[in-house]
């Protein structure tokens, strides 16, 4: 698996327990609109992602990330 697909797989794993609506998640899935996460769920998820990948996702960056694919891209850049 490429680095990117590994990152995507890991992100999907971490989304699963928070996917209460049972939405079929793809790279195009949007966190707020499709997964319907509230701000607390987002906070939990961001903290989990940060710990898993040992990165910081600032609120400035979070504002630019709407979809799963965008998160995977951002993680790729942060780890480069």
């Amino acid at each position, binding site marked *: 698996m490429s680095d990117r697909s590994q990152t995507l797989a890991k992100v999907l794993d971490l989304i699963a327990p928070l996917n209460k609506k049972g939405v079929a998640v793809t790279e195009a899935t949007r966190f707020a609109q499709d997964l319907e996460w*509230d701000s*607390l769920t987002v*906070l939990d998820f961001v*903290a989990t992602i*940060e*710990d898993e990948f*040992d*990165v*910081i996702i*600032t*609120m*400035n960056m979070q504002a630019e990330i709407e979809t799963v694919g965008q998160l995977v891209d951002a993680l790729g850049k942060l780890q480069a």
Partner: protein
Amino acid sequence: MSDLFAKFDPIIELRETLLASGQTDPFNLVMERVESPTVAICNGKRTILLGTYNYMGMTFDPDVVAAGKQALDDYGSGTTGSRVLNGTYAGHKACEEALKDFYGMDHAMVFSTGYQANLGIISTIAGKEDYIILDIDSHASIYDGCALGNAQIVPFRHNDIEALDKRLKRLPPEAGKLVVLEGVYSMLGDIAPLKEMVAVSKDAGAMVLVDEAHSMGFIGEHGRGVAEAQGVIDDVDFIIGTFSKSVGTVGGFCVSNHPKFEILRLVCRPYVFTASLPPSVVATAATSIRKLMDSADKRAHLWENSKRLHAGLRQFGFTLGTDEPQSAIIAVIMPDLEKGAAMWEALLNEGLYVNLARPPATPAGMTLLRCSLCALHTEDQVGEILGMFAAAGRATGCIS
């Protein structure tokens, strides 16, 4: 033409639904007369005030009121100017001297409100390449300070020392870092583990700002706040505070020992581009601050009030924001907004005013009845308050 107000429709609807049930509007109360720091007349009825942040009851202190009247006579009703132009009077300097003496610090800067103090200091000292690391439950004025500036914002889970430490360690070692904490978090009335948090921040080379709005005058041996109580005030770079709580008027400030602190008077926009406080306000503030230095007995009585209310409400079966009383704020957690509003109204009918707090001000979507005690609440009043809570709680079905 699209109506720019369409975005407010959800909140308009929420409000209309609530009021359609016959509920009194909890955000539109008028105090017709105010008799003392603890009693006002609302809807023609004598009402005990338990939601004013008037922790030390200084609003009717005779020395404080006399100082304000004298300043009105001597200096007029307002300054009509910025602190850096024609808006600095002797009273503003005297007020800053009082703050320096109160905190034992080298510098003090007075802003027109506490909100503006956070807005000004945070937005000015953290630049584009710098990081602000803040507790997720921070006050709106802290978030707005972040939004006004252009630093990188890193939130961490409320009061979680390890989460703060981890994030600090992941940031570039050479980057500028400002850790923003509060002594008392005003929604639940819980305090921060400042001893540990200041230590991990200093280890990471960060500067630390602590907002002590809800602890000044009350917590710590000299009333300097939670940082004093936990023995780390010397390691805190900036303390932000307000005159609109224990001090009993309006205004905000920052105190610091930073050698270059005074330059902020020229570069901090929320300080420069607004009118300074009226002379009567700084006169009342300075007088009140000096009296607060020597108020150990009042502090002790306020702790007694807080402990008694906390224990009493708990005994009735209410769910509270903290297991132990940690400050002068006792938050009663309500199951939802409807129940919270009904309980709020039942208390008002009993003759008790508390704050109804709801999202987005509250954490975790909670509805709270927030009680803030005053050092001038008498033992009898605290007894009355408990009786009103019992009656209102049973009438609304909040307790059995």
